[in-house]
Structures are given as structure tokens and as C-alpha cells.
């Protein structure tokens, strides 16, 4: 194993060196870095050209200049741009901005894609399966820049117009959503026709009543979950997760999850109108999230009895969801302040940039600001990668479900839930894990177009500005990060696969 890792690492270093060499020369030879100066009418043109040649060492031919650059990299210096700014500083800023953009999109796309892929695999060849298949093919074929413009027009501008005066959902939209929700649930939940009809009615009724209530309480102007919403989410999570992970027959797990949800509810008012005001830094929020999961784990441990593991898992997930709902509610509370503030002027969904300049307010207001700016690019990114994850997880689960040991598990008389969750799902995750590792390696470089459309100054801008000016240094800084991450995660993917699947041996 160690020998394998070392050999792969050494090979990776050489691959990266070769790739950077290739890339450097391609960038350096892609155009004339002095073009803008040659065309200018400045009186000191010759002098400017002279100084730029000196700055970028243009007197050295590109293959040799690469080694000058490489020498700098080994000393931690990525060089200067044409404008004489430090690439290190630019890279740091760009990387932060891009990570902020792609992290949430990737996480959401993975969770959504996995969920949808698994449900389609379990309902193979159903109407739901065919619909999702068609939709994922469609998403595969969408050019992201085209989607982005549509999102700007219909989601941002349309939604902002909707919010402008007395937002009320029109009746036809409520009817449409109601029918869609009913059909969706009826096609996912198995059963005979009678049960399907009941499912349809329940889902449609719940959706319709929720939307009508939202209209009645003017939800779109003053969004919030209130303690009722948090209670529904917390108790729903407790029951749902118990049913999913251990089955409702495991009373210990159910009670532990309900205790966690109850604790969350008990802390709702103290948090919303007390504790939350003293949270002024992001790390405090993260610490609170960790603390709530920790407390949930402890509750699970104490109530777990002989079989602590699954109970702790159920409790921890319930705690996470309940705490998340409370935090979400807190963010929603400042929505009205945010939307009507002087910098926003009632049009909250942003179409460009990564934050509102000069926006003042608490951490919660800043959070809402980040959310409104992330919404569109995240949607665009999710649309694209959602399709891949859906197809992969569907194929993976189908492959596992057709194996002999699944039939054995069923033959033993295990419940279908146990067969799917315990036996099939875990093994289906193995190939997904490697794909996720690949994708994480690729996300930093994958958002070039999205960043450009939504005006984020991240890695994509670093790359593009550098390339437009035939300036290898920023382009190479971009590539060093992107290529390095790709190679690193490639290695990690192989190791994860070997670690998870004993059938694969690395040597």
C-alpha cells in the first residue's frame, strides 16, 4: 500500500511537471504579450515595451522561461502579472471566492443527485424513472451560459418583480404545484392503485394547504418557519430518519430522536431572541452546529441501550436537521430588513457579483446577502452536475440490487428497507465515492463559465484575464491549483476505492 502511494505520488509529480510545461508554453505562444503596447500611441512606447520585456522576462524563450517560473514556484513565488500585481495575493482571493461558489453547489448536487438516482433505481421503468431519465439527458445537453441567462431573466428578475408589491401566489401556480407534488409522491411510494390514489391525495392536500397558508400569512414578504415549522421539521426528521435508518420498531432510536428534536424546540425561543444576537462570527455558528451534533450523539449514546451505533446516528442526523431549521428560521427573520434595506431596495435576488458592497448588518444579514448572491450560480451549477450524479447512482444501485447477496438477504426474510439501506445502498456508494472524489478535484476549474456569466472574480477570472493578456503567470497559478487538485484527488479516489472495496487490490 505504502509503496503504491509513493509510486503514484512520484508519478503524479512528473505528470504535473509535464502538464505545467506544456501549459506554460501553450499560453506563452498563444499570442503576443506586447500587442496592446505596440498598438498604443504613448510617446514612451519603446520604453514601456522595454520595461514589460524586462518584467516578464520576454527576452528568454518560453521553454526556458518555464524553468525560471518553476524556480520561483519552488520558492513559493508565483510571479507578477502584467499589471505588476502579486499573483500569490490574487490567487488567494480568487480561490476563496471560487470555493465559496462551488462548495454549496457540489454538496447540494451530490445529495439531490444521490436521492433522485436511488429513488429512480428503486422504481426502475416507472413513469418517474422515465421522466427523470429524460430530464437528466436534457440537463446534460444544456449549455450552462444559456441556462444562466434564463435564470437571470426568470428566477432573478421575475422573482424580484413578484416580490415588488404584495406577493401572492396565483391560483394556477398553486394548482400546478399541487398536482405535480401529488404525482411525484404517488410515483415514488409503491403500492396498489388504491394506495397510490391515497398517496396522491395526501401529498396534493399537504402541498395545497401549505401554499395557501403561505399566501394567507404573506409568507413571501415575511418568510419564516416559526416554532411550528421548526417542530414539523424536527419531529418529521426524527420519525423519518428513524424509519429510514433503523426502522420504527426500534423504539430506543425513535425516543432518542424525539428527545433531540424536543430539546431543539425547547431551545428555540432562547436562541432566536437571546443567544443568536451574541453570535457575531461565522466560526461561532460552526461551533454551535458541531455542539448540537455532539449533544445529539451524547443523547443517542445514553439512550442507545445495547445497540448504540444506529441510535447515535439517528440522533445526530435529527439534531443536525433541527438545528439547521432553527438557524434557517433565524436567517429568514432578517429577510425583511435585508430586502428593504437601502442597498437592496426591494430587489433581493442578485444577478451579478458575490456580495453587496458596503452592506451593513449582523452576521445574519450578511448570511442572507451571501444566499441571494449564491442562489443563481448555484442553481446553474446544480442543474449541470445533478444529471451526472443521478445517472451514476441509479446505475450503481441497479447493479448492486441485481446481485446474489441481495436475493439472499431477501430470502432470509429481511424487510425491504433493511435490504436496500443496509445491504444495497452502502455498496452502491462505493463507486459514487470515487466519482465524488474526482469531482471535488475538478470543481475549482469547472466553474469558469459560470463565474464569468455571474460576474464572480474567482479562479475563472484569474485564468481568463491572464489568457487575454497572454500573461502566463496568473494562468499558471490557476492551472497549478486546478491540475494539482485533479491529480491529488485522482489518487485519493483510487485509494478510497481500494479501501472501501476489498475486491480491488492496489499494487
Amino acid at each position, binding site marked *: 500500500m505504502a509503496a503504491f502511494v509513493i509510486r503514484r505520488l512520484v508519478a503524479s509529480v512528473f505528470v504535473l511537471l509535464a502538464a505545467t510545461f506544456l501549459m506554460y508554453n501553450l499560453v506563452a505562444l498563444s499570442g503576443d504579450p506586447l500587442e496592446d503596447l505596440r498598438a498604443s500611441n504613448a510617446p514612451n512606447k519603446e520604453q514601456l515595451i522595454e520595461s514589460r520585456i524586462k518584467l516578464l522576462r520576454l527576452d528568454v524563450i518560453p521553454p526556458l522561461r518555464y524553468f525560471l517560473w518553476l524556480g520561483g514556484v519552488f520558492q513559493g513565488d508565483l510571479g507578477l502579472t502584467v499589471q505588476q500585481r502579486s499573483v500569490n495575493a490574487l490567487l488567494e482571493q480568487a480561490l476563496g471566492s471560487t470555493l465559496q461558489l462551488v462548495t454549496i453547489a457540489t454538496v447540494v448536487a451530490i445529495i439531490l443527485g444521490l436521492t433522485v438516482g436511488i429513488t429512480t433505481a428503486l422504481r*426502475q421503468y416507472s413513469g418517474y424513472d422515465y421522466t427523470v431519465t429524460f430530464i437528466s*439527458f436534457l440537463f*446534460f445537453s444544456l449549455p450552462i*451560459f444559456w441556462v444562466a441567462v434564463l435564470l437571470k431573466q426568470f428566477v432573478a428578475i421575475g422573482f424580484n418583480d413578484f416580490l415588488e408589491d404584495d406577493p401572492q401566489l396565483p391560483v394556477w401556480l398553486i394548482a400546478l404545484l399541487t398536482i405535480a407534488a401529488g404525482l411525484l409522491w404517488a410515483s415514488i411510494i409503491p403500492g396498489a392503485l388504491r394506495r397510490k390514489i391515497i398517496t396522491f391525495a395526501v401529498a396534493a392536500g399537504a402541498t395545497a394547504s401549505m401554499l395557501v397558508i403561505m399566501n394567507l400569512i404573506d409568507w413571501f414578504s415575511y418568510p419564516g418557519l416559526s416554532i411550528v415549522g421548526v417542530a414539523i421539521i424536527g419531529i418529521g426528521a426524527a420519525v423519518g430518519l428513524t424509519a429510514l435508518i433503523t426502522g420504527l420498531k426500534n423504539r430506543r432510536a425513535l425516543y432518542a430522536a424525539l428527545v433531540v428534536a424536543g430539546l431543539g424546540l425547547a431551545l428555540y425561543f432562547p436562541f432566536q431572541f437571546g443567544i443568536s444576537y451574541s453570535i457575531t462570527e461565522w466560526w461561532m455558528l460552526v461551533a454551535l452546529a458541531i455542539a448540537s451534533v455532539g449533544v445529539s450523539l451524547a443523547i443517542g449514546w445514553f439512550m442507545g441501550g445495547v445497540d448504540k451505533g444506529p441510535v447515535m446516528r439517528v440522533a445526530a442526523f435529527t439534531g443536525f436537521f433541527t438545528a439547521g431549521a432553527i438557524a434557517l428560521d433565524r436567517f429568514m427573520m432578517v429577510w425583511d430588513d435585508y430586502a428593504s434595506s437601502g442597498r437592496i431596495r426591494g430587489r433581493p435576488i442578485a444577478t451579478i457579483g458575490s456580495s453587496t458592497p458596503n452592506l451593513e448588518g449582523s452576521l445574519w444579514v450578511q448570511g442572507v446577502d451571501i444566499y441571494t448572491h449564491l442562489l443563481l450560480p448555484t442553481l446553474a451549477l446544480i442543474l449541470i452536475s445533478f444529471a451526472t450524479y443521478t445517472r*451514476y447512482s441509479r446505475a450503481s444501485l441497479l447493479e448492486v440490487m441485481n446481485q446474489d447477496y441481495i436475493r439472499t438477504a431477501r430470502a432470509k426474510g429481511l424487510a425491504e428497507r433493511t435490504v436496500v439501506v443496509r445491504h444495497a445502498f452502502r455498496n452502491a456508494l462505493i463507486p459514487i465515492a470515487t466519482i465524488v472524489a474526482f469531482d471535488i478535484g475538478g470543481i475549482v476549474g469547472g466553474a469558469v463559465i459560470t463565474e464569468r456569466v455571474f460576474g464572480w472574480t474567482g479562479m475563472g477570472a484569474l485564468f481568463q484575464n491572464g489568457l487575454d493578456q497572454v500573461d502566463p503567470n496568473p494562468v499558471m497559478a490557476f*492551472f497549478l491549483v486546478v491540475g494539482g487538485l485533479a491529480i491529488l484527488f485522482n489518487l485519493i479516489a483510487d485509494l478510497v476505492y481500494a479501501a472501501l472495496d476489498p475486491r480491488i487490490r492496489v499494487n
Partner: protein
Amino acid sequence: MSNLNAPVPSGGVTDAENNIANKEVEGLSQGQIVRRRFFRHRGAVVSMITLAFIVVLAFSAVGFDFSVFGVQVKTPGWWQWTWTEIPTAQNGGRPTLSLVPEWMDGEGVRFGDHPFGQDEIGRDIFAVVMRGTQQSIVIMVIVGLIATTIGTVIGAVSGYYRGWVDSVLMRFTDVIITIPLIVIGAVLGLAFGKLGAFVLAIIIGLFTWTGLARLVRGEVLSLREREFVDAARVAGATDRRIIFKHILPNAIGVIIVNTTLLMAAAILLETALSFLGYGVQSPDTSLGKIISENQSAFATRPWLFWWPGVFIIAIALCINFIGDGLRDAFDPRQKRLPSARALAKGNSGGLDRAAVVVTARGAGMQGGGDGAGGVGLRGFDADDPRPRGGGYDAARDPKKDS
């Protein structure tokens, strides 16, 4: 792919089941079987017809106009405007296409002078979009050809010879694969985009073969251990003959399926590059470039934006569906067995149903025994009898190659 010809297991219901499956393919060559399966995939057939229609429309409407390395090819089209002509704008450039017939209170079905509208200086968008579609299709085909050739050869050589040849070629592949496509496309497009769509396509093709090479290598690695390759070697066949006549025809499914996926990716890559300004350059045009130029005009002239986008999606979607159909057609594991319910219904009573479940194990063993690259056995299942459906696994799973 050769387990299409696997012997039919005998015994009980397995026999009945395989008889139904085999009756359809009796006396047919593999090509015929594949073709027949492909034409049964409705989505793929519809896509193929749509794509053919788009191709004919695009190339006949405004005529060819390409210059390859100095050789000019130019033919007239049947459409009244060319994509460079600038007629005067009518009615604010609004599209004259109308599909709502008069009896539905519409303006009647008509195309008018400018069915897709005009841009701000008056160019006919139908002609411009057709020109862009031509470019996209040309790029797609050339990229497909070049990338497939390079990928197949490198993958086959590396998988067949193994050893240091394999190491060198695969490390070379790693180097290329490390550079994101959009990045290398942008860098090269900046340098070569001015030379026209052909050169751009060749350049893109030179860098998009990596995934295919890995897949072909994996396929060849497993195929070269098979008996028919030993037989060919004993008969005195040269390496070249073994690779091209014996091994590659057996890997044709993987190659064709991935070529289609690659072509769909190429079309999106080209439009993305043109959108960023590194692809096809003015005065020529492409679908991505039209969108890029007009994205700010969405509020005032949305047709400048809708039509090129619709054509990009239509082409990519068609290619993806055709690829899906081909995958189903080439993968012997994907054959749709008659369902257990149908079989059980044919027999009578619950006892026979149980017999189906028990004896069907044999079929499962047979089907999954030597599936290329597959892990474990793909059995027959009482609750869900259909074999694994079309997924992206076999063709796109990056782990299948190593």
C-alpha cells in the same frame, strides 16, 4: 461483447426464458442484432430522425461555405437570405414565424420573410443560426473522428503491449487529462480560432481522446487474455492484425458509445469556447457566439437568444439519446428478458412461480459469467426480473479501466 453468442443453458424455465430471448436473434449476424435493438429504442430513433432533419436543414438552407487550408467550397442555399446579407429590419426584427392556426385565433401557420427574426442591424437570424448549426455539426464530426482514432489507437496499443509502452502512453494520457478541456480549448482557441472551424475542430480533437483511450485500454486488457486471441497468435497473425481484426471489433460497442458522448461534449465545448470568445471568430459565426453577442439583448430581442440555444440543445440531446440507444443495443446484458410476471402468468399457479425463481439462477450465472469489466454476477431476480437498465456505468465509469 462476444458473450452474445454464449451457449444457451438448458433446463426448466431458464430454457423457456432463453428461447423467447433467442428466438428473436436466431440466424442474425451481430450487426443485425445490434441494429434491431437500436431501432427498438424509440428515443434513439426519434433523435436520429430529428438530427438528420437538422443536418439537412442547416446544410441546404444557406449552402456550404468553408475554406479548408486555402481550398474554398461554396454552394448556394435555398433560403432567400444568406447569413452575411443585411436586409432592412421589418417590424423591429420580430420573428415572422407563426404556428398557431387561424381557427385558434392565431395568425395562421406561416413562415414569413424572417421566421426567426432579425438582429439589430437586420441580419436574418434563421440564416445566421443555420450557419452556426453547420459550424457546430462540422466541429462535432471532426472532433469525433479525430478523437476516436487517436483514443482507440493509443488505448489499444497500450492495452495490448502493456509494460513500458503502456506506462509511457498512460502517463502521457494523464498529462493531457490533467488539463481541463475548457482551459486547453481556450488557450488553443485563442491561437487557432481565427483559422476557422475546421482547424479549431482538429485542435479540439487532438485533446479530447483521453477518456476513450483509457476505456479502450481497459477493454483491450481483458480481451487480449481471451482464447480467440491466443488462437490468432498461434495461427501466426501479426500484432497489428490481432489488434485491428480480432480485438478492436470486439470493443466496438464501447468505442461507438463513447464517440457519441464525446461528440455531444464537443458541441457543448465549442459553444462554450465561442461564448468565452476563444472559439470561432468574426466574421464567421457559431451558435455559442450568437448567444454571447446577444445575451444582454434578452429583454428586448429574446429570439436572438432562444433559437441558437434551442439548436444547441436539440443537437446535443439527439446525440445523447442516440448514444443511449447504441449502448442498449451493444450491451448484451441489457436484453429485455420477458418479465417473470409474464412468464409466471404463462404458467399457472403459485407453484410454477416458485419454480421460476429457483431455476432461474442458472440464467443468472450464464448472463453474468464473463461480462467484460463487470463485477460479480448479474442474476435473475424474482421481484424485479428485468436486467439492469441503461445507465452510465459501463461506458463512463472511470474505474472500469484500471
